[in-house]
């Protein structure tokens, strides 16, 4: 018999009525949940609201949790984002016309900046903004998979749980998402920028 994970212990304590235990789970996963919402919705305020609602929903359905907490929670978060996008027909609020300086100052993206060069910092900020916008241009199912895989670092198995799809579908969606993203990156001439950044780093 395997020892219960820290998540399982916190879930059990929350089910026994310890509210603080659930809030420990919230603190542990709020960045991931918010990150997924932000990448999917492209709006910091909406992302915070949806992530908050997802945690409330998770608490409501906590007694029905079977298995691991993290993929279960991320499934709730992904579904909440999908519901919002479908019901509101929300358009991405981050556009290519957004002032990069505003993006830099946004609390939604707190970049751990280790680059002393301001020009390089701006280039990176522009790069990240372009990638965020590119993500919003691919279909929702593909976007969800590529965010979970390449940004959140989830395994195919976990993504299958989160999306409710089988692993073959996950791989197929991931392939299509990356192919589409690559096309967007090429069109935006992103790769030369990245190569220049890499060259600068090497020198």
């Amino acid at each position, binding site marked *: 018999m395997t020892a219960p994970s820290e998540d399982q*212990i916190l879930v059990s304590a929350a*089910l026994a009525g310890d509210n603080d235990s659930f809030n420990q789970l*919230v603190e542990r996963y709020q960045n991931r949940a918010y990150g997924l919402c932000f990448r999917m919705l492209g709006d910091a305020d909406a992302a*915070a609201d949806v992530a908050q609602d997802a945690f409330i929903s998770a608490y409501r359905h906590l007694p029905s949790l079977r298995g691991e907490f993290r993929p279960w929670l991320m499934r709730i978060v992904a579904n909440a984002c999908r519901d919002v996008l479908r019901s509101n027909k929300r358009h991405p609020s981050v556009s290519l016309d957004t002032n990069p300086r505003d993006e830099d100052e946004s609390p939604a993206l707190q970049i751990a900046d280790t680059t002393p060069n301001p020009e390089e910092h701006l280039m990176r900020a522009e790069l990240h903004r372009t990638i965020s916008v590119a993500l919003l241009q691919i279909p929702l199912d593909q976007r969800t998979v590529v965010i979970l895989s390449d940004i959140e670092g989830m395994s195919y198995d976990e993504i299958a749980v989160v999306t409710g799809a089988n692993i073959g579908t996950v791989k197929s969606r991931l392939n299509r998402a*990356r192919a589409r993203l690559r096309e967007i990156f090429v069109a935006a001439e992103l790769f030369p920028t990245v190569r220049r950044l890499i060259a600068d780093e090497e020198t």
Partner: protein
Amino acid sequence: MSTISHSDMSLLQAMADNELPADQSAALRARFGTEPMLADAFSELAMMRELLHDMPAARPARSLRLDAQTMQQARGWRWWLISPPGGQFLPALGVAACLCVALLFGRGYDQVSAPDQLHLKGSVAAPMLADAPAEAAPADAAAPDTARVADASVPLVAQQPEPSMLPLLGVTAGLVGTVGSARWLMRLRKIQRKAV
């Protein structure tokens, strides 16, 4: 880019994910020398994965912790099943329910069968009434009636009431309720123990 087929693109992505078998991976790499577009596409895919992986972490501007009131409101029926209000009193309630059901059905049985018992036990009741004190005038008056009933030619065995199962059912229902409540409580305690 347009010259790269869909199947080649899938192979490149599988290789970028380290999911391609070694022999297929080697065969694909061997094509890089003759097909520079393929090599460029692989390089771009790898770069893209790295870019996505290195995206800065997004953090909410506020804490998403839930306050006690929100939690209380969010508790649905599943929560009620796990921790019902007054759950510690469930066994006591079960016993009380058992007694109530038993008394209810038991009394009903007594009320229905009392006249029958009076008639059937007339022969027995008569001597008892005869032994009663003399001032019990109504009892004296009832004696002839009971004697007449006792004289009736109806067979005694045919008038005996069917033994009722209702009290037994009541007690059984109560016991089941008690055991169910106790098990429910034990499950709750188990969850609490695990939490500790």
